[in-house]
């Protein structure tokens, strides 16, 4: 499983970007599942292709404390490609 990190105690008065940042976890990016070379290679390739986006989303969702249930994997990828539809990313020459 991905490292989901921890939540540090937060001043409940904080609001805005500062408050949102404060509510983030300590370690955010998805790490490799193990220390072996295969785990690391797999993690790198998956990360580069963007495959770990759903895991990162789940971790984000859990930390955010959002009361609605997280999207299923299928729905997440639909949401993501629909979003890409409206926000095209350039590819270089």
């Amino acid at each position, binding site marked *: 499983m991905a*490292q989901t*990190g*921890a*939540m*540090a*105690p*937060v*001043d409940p008065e*904080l609001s805005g*970007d*500062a408050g*949102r*940042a*404060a*509510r*983030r*976890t*300590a*370690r*955010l*990016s*998805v790490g490799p599942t193990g220390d072996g070379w295969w785990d690391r290679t797999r*993690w*790198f*390739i*998956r*990360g*580069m*292709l*963007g*495959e*770990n*986006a*759903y895991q*990162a*989303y789940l971790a*984000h*969702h*859990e*930390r*955010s*404390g*959002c009361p609605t249930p997280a999207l299923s*994997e299928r729905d*997440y*990828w*639909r949401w*993501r*490609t629909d*979003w*890409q*539809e*409206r*926000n*095209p*990313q*350039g*590819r*270089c*020459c």
Partner: protein
Amino acid sequence: MSVDSAELPPVSLTEEQVEAEEKRWTPVRIATWAAIAILGGVAWVMLAIVRGETINAIWFVFAAVCTYLIAYRFYATYIEKKITQPDDNRATPAEYKENGQDYMPTDRRVLYGHHFAAIAGAGPLVGPVLAAQLGYLPGTIWIIVGVVLAGAVQDYLVLFFSMRRGGRSLGQMARDELGKVGGTAALLATLTIMIIIVAILALVVVNALGESPWGVFSVGMTIPIALFMGVYLRYLRPGKVSEVSLIGFVLLILVIVAGGWVADTSWGAEWFTLDRTTIAWGIIIYGFIAAVLPVWLLLAPRDYLSTFMKVGTIVMLAVAIVLVRPEITVPALSEFAGRSDAPVVAGPLFPFLFVTIACGALSGFHALISSGTTPKLIEKERQTKFIGYGGMLMESFVAIMALVAAISIDRGIYFAMNVSAAATGGTVEGAVAYVNGLGLTGVNLTPEMLETAAANVGEESIVSRTGGAPTLALGLSHIMQQLIGGTSLMSFWYHFAIMFEALFILTAVDAGTRVARFMLQDSLGNFWPRFRDTSWRTGAWVCTGIMVAGWGAILIMGVTDPLGGINTLFPLFGIANQLLAALALSICLAIAARQNRKALWVIIVPLAFATVVTTVASLYKIFSSVPSIGYWAQHAAFKDALARGETSFGTAGSVEAMEAVVRNTFIQGTLSIVFVVLTLIVIATAVMATISSIRSGGAPTTEEEFVQSRIYAPAGIISTPAEKDLEAQWAAYLAEHPVERVRGHH
């Protein structure tokens, strides 16, 4: 800020720790850097001074890698200290705007690969091939020195400044820094430059596939493969990206092999031998459809496939060059280095070398990736040096490998492939007569050499296969066959390379059209607000149509041009790309001056160089009286010939062809003027903004507000001892504090 971070371990090394780390010159460290410097120095001496019969390709690798290491360790660190001054206490947009979507803190090593895959494309592969006509040295020096002082600096600064501004795009930053006039000029310049870049990339593919049934079949098959992958990811196994990429890759290898069988059958040869105009129309229609189809169906899966192939092939080529270590017989400086009548791309070395090799040394297009996509994924501020500066060094290395591949083939074959059909007549005899007539030392081309080479790679002919891609493919197959398979596998490697280039050029065409369409909709929205609504189908179709018509017209013009197409258009591509770089650097200059930074020369040097190179090259293209260099001189010569009632002139054999030249040169000449004028407006407004900032000792910042960071990650690829210590503190902290939800957050 009032965030109480007392209970967290530190989120940043202290300045003293960073300082101490840099100054910790242990004997081992001193010895390592001395060894790197000596090896790099020896390699440069071998390349530039020692004149043997041949030179081993391994020296290119040493010269490049040692120079990159030293530049990264010392020069990039200098820029970090003097200009960017990152602060790991500051949360990045990925941290404070995290949304599980585009804002997402990403491990620096993964992001490096991601960023590299986004910036590297066909550009660094094509330019060095065309510049090899001058010998290996001019291109090598420009690629390596250019990236250190210009290209990597641009990528790093744009990435950093965009990150400090919440991931704003280059266009938005131009508006913020330069006001309305500069901002509008920047937007128009970006839009027109994108059109020309997409058109010329498409032209490279057309030239590689023209009259090649094998290539047409295998590249054409990538469309059904991508559609299959799209459906697989949408309905069968959502999110299994590497699985589907692997399936796609296996299918890709199958269609490359199958292409050889199909091209051998009579029906295959009949169906898939297409002339360039037909292929160009095919790409135009494809480009329109791809840009309006849902992203998940074609663009996203093609992008996965292209990333997979790109990184895999580049690693493979690097390993092959190191293992095979080919001997290079091309001279350091060719006969054409000191002249202005070189046959591949005409014009004197200065400025044309510097616009022929754009990507790999300095590429303005990267500024569009470094602002917008990557800055929203950066985890910690200090990682920008590794991602931005380091990512561009890797692209430069790709350009060096492309150069090595191109010069590892026989020089006579190189010219036969890269000189336009207007000069060779497109025949083996014509090519042999033309190339031998150039009077190059050590070149003695025979018809057998060309025929054997064509047969080895499974093509009917390799004469006048311009555009760089076929030459690179031949070079790659030449190197790879020495490692695996011998000459019997050369045709596979050749078509593998063609596929690899075509794949990511087509991805760039799709994505470029889409991005340009959104830019156009945004601009039109100023006059007709409904265009801003990007989900409005009619608006989307109209704007896509306009963009496709723009690059399609230039593509058709290039394909039908009696003067040889790519060879006259490629300088325009380089000029456009470097103008975009000058534009991005000028925005960086205005920002750095606003922040009251002192070492502005770091930006001024590459900005001045890019401005001079592109302006001089544009002036040549506009005012040169030599028809092979100046668009208007060519225009006038053909117009006069028509006025005199002549029915053939130069390489144009009919009145229609002559009229085509008149029309094409008019468009090319006009574009040259438009680019240079727009960019000079942007640079002028940026310089004025810079001077006013310097006079008043800085100006109010355009950065987003400081937000306290609450995460930690090291800056570079390898953690330093102090970073390891901090990582250990965080690991211990995390073990004690399991996930704790925050109530009340939406």
